[in-house]
């Protein structure tokens, strides 16, 4: 019961903050609301038992990625008129209608699939099921130890590939954002 209350509290905060991310005029406000979304999602991860990923969510997303976003927003130093140019009405309303239709469709499909799922939950109490859930839940598979064990044995190769990806991203970001001393930007020539 308590976990349901916490879930709905966090869910409402996540949805409201996400809508504010999309609709607020000022990108700095958007970024701050996005940090709120990340922190609430970390709370939901804790509710699901994924403590290690909740910590990562706060450290990597709210800590590193969002600081990068805020840094770029401050660096660009946009003027007021560049902050929130209004979208076309068709973009706003047609987009909303299409997305709402997509959401309804998704929820219908999920609830249809969940019917099978709830049947399989009831199967736990059926006579054919011999292993009780309690013995399966003896160890904590959500712990950092368990996740790290899987990450460094079964998924060691993807983990190493990730380091190459990050190196490529670092080099790419430095090369793209570097000031070019010889090539003048197009707009300056006019």
């Amino acid at each position: 019961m308590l976990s349901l209350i916490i879930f709905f509290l966090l869910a409402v905060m996540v949805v409201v903050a996400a809508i504010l991310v999309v609709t607020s005029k000022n990108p700095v406000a958007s970024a701050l609301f996005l940090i709120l979304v990340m922190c609430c999602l970390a709370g939901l991860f804790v509710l699901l038992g994924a403590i290690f990923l909740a910590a990562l969510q706060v450290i990597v997303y709210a800590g590193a990625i969002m600081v990068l976003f805020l840094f770029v927003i401050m660096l660009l130093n946009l003027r007021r008129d560049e902050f929130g140019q209004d979208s076309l009405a068709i973009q706003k309303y047609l987009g909303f209608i299409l997305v709402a239709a997509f959401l309804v469709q998704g929820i219908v499909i999920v609830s249809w699939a969940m019917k099978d799922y709830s049947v399989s939950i009831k199967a736990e109490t059926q006579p054919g099921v011999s292993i009780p859930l309690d013995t399966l839940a003896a160890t904590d598979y959500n712990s950092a130890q368990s996740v790290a064990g899987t990450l460094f044995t079964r998924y060691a190769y993807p983990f190493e590939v990730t380091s190459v990806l990050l190196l490529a991203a670092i080099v790419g970001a430095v090369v793209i954002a570097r000031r070019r001393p010889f090539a003048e930007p197009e707009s300056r020539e006019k």
Partner: protein
Amino acid sequence: MVPLGYFIVLSAILFCIGVWGVLRSRNAIVIFMAIELMLNAVNLSLIAFSSNMKHILVRFVQSMAPQDAANAIGTATSSGQVFVFLVMTVAAAEAAVGLAIIIYVYRMKDSVNVDDVNIMKW
């Protein structure tokens, strides 16, 4: 225990808000933030499924010895979390390169409005 369906519906709502943000805004930075929102929605659903692995797999492990069944469920649970870990890494790399591109476009065009960036349009 919160039912799995609640998390999946919340994840769908978050994803749709992200899609809506990409469709409606013209500021490239806000579009990037909406993409991060979608990545987070997917992470939420992955974690929700991974921590419900016990209930999802209970039928399929009945023929195994209890220890093997526990190992299978444990591997499936932590696999989902490793997946989320990799998604976070990709999101970090994507944000770094994407923001570098935005800075470069701003230097070229003096704007972060995506309507001004039409150099690939013929």
